[in-house]
């Protein structure tokens, strides 16, 4: 099995890119791959544990705790998250806060890098 790193920068609400990313990560995990998910820019809001499941808005963040339990590594750009008012204490348990060099390192070193969705 391989190591897949997915990086995304898309908005949580206003685009379906994060919805796609989370479902892709879930599928890859189910197939036995190791999956890293890098969140930067607006996508850092995905880890906010207080997101409500309104049916008018996509809410893929609610899937994260189960996926983290299955082995998904979720890594957040700390500066991007802090700029949006999502410090670690507001984040889902099991999420790592760090800087951009992590994404470059594991994105380039893994078997596949998928950079999905601009802002």
């Amino acid at each position, binding site marked *: 099995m391989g190591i897949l790193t997915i990086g995304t920068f898309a908005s949580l609400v206003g685009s379906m890119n994060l919805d796609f990313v989370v479902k892709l990560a879930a599928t890859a995990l189910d197939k036995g791959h190791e999956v890293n998910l890098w969140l930067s*820019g607006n996508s850092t809001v995905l880890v906010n544990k207080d997101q409500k499941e309104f049916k008018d808005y996509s809410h893929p963040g609610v899937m994260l705790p189960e996926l983290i339990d299955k082995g998904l590594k979720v890594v957040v750009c700390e500066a991007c998250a802090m700029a949006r008012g999502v410090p670690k204490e507001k984040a889902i348990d099991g999420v790592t806060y760090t800087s951009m060099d992590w*994404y*470059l*390192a594991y994105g380039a070193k893994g078997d596949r890098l998928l950079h999905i969705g*601009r802002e």
Partner: protein
Amino acid sequence: MGLSILFLVQTPPYKSENPKLALTHALAGPLTELHIDEEVKTTVAFVGDGVLNCLKDQKSMDHWDITSTEQHLRNLLLSDVPVMVCKEDLEKFGISKDRLVDATEMGAEISIEVVPFSEIQAKIDEATALMCF
């Protein structure tokens, strides 16, 4: 050949965060050795509307109190991260080389390279990974 990432910037400055994210990520290349046993080399290439990021004398600090894309570009040049801009796209906008960001007066040893798109395509082929912004 070592690991390398090409950052391809297609979007104009300030309309979105995309160009700034590309530049700040590219600047993190030398720090990758903190995580893995080798440095990931980064290169930034501007094409299409993205070439507008390379204009000098940006006034974002005056107008919005935020660091300019120009300052991020200077940081890249000062860190010896190669920066390429598409010659054909500059010509479409009527932008001459003397209007581009430069950091040599701050001590940078490299400048923005104006290159034909074919050279950027070659860099895309060479890179371990491509990130489009």
